[in-house]
């Protein structure tokens, strides 16, 4: 296996994702947890760029890192109380969860190693053109995604209305 720049970039991203995603769930303070999540999301966008899916990587950076993380930070600032920083977890419970998670990971990796993946795509970066993307997203033939696109738009509208209804103050009821 020759060392190409792609391999080096992948190894860096893999180590970075491993480190930050483990730190996301093990750090005690929630602001740090959100910051590590931000780094994980950026590294995930890097993996999409490495695969040649530049549009997907851009969407990941804009929607996740731009939109969702702002929501997280604001809601952390809105809802963090005085005693919320330190979480005490029972040791027995933590070890049980750790054993279950590690067992699940071992089973998954065993299945991956046993299954014969028929890897036909090479790692040559061939970008999906924006034109074919838009044509597929807006067409209703065999490989078209018009129906999910419209369903997503109605779904987002329902979420906007639902978010406003849930988060508004209930003063008029009293």
């Amino acid at each position, binding site marked *: 296996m020759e060392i190409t720049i792609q391999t080096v970039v992948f190894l860096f991203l893999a180590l970075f994702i*491993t480190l930050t995603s483990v730190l996301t769930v093990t750090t005690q303070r929630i602001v740090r*947890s959100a910051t590590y999540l931000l780094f994980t999301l950026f590294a*995930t966008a890097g993996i999409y760029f490495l695969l040649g*899916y530049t549009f997907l990587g851009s969407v*990941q950076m804009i929607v*996740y890192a731009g939109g*969702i993380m702002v929501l*997280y930070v604001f809601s952390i600032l809105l809802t963090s109380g005085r005693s919320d920083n330190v979480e005490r977890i029972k040791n027995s419970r933590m070890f049980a969860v750790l054993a279950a998670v590690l067992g699940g990971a071992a089973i998954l990796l065993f299945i991956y190693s046993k299954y014969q993946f028929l890897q036909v795509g090479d790692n040559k970066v061939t970008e999906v053109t924006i034109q074919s993307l838009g044509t*597929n997203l807006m067409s209703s033939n065999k*490989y078209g995604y018009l129906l999910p696109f419209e369903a997503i738009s109605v779904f987002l509208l329902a979420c906007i209305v639902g978010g406003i209804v849930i988060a508004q103050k209930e003063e008029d009821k009293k």
Partner: protein
Amino acid sequence: MISIICYLIVSTIMLCAGIYGFFTRHNLLAMLISVELMLNATDINFAVFNRLLYPNGQEGYFFALFSIAISAAETAIAIAIMINIYRNIRSIQVDKINKMKW
């Protein structure tokens, strides 16, 4: 040429970190962050399967795209619910949420 196993190992680690955080955290926001980790791992899997196993199709690409949109909507709703809970009981720790409104 990077094997598909390498990508799958990365996404497995991310998924298991998310599951671990979902079970051990007591803060609702931290649990939501763990859910985001799990969703991200599945998105990586979609993109990698499409790229390395079926490079002529675009199904995994679109699934990842729609999954990002859905997770954004889900996060917005969940945070709205959490802010409402905080307004009512002044805390979003799961062990303090032990009674419903009615």
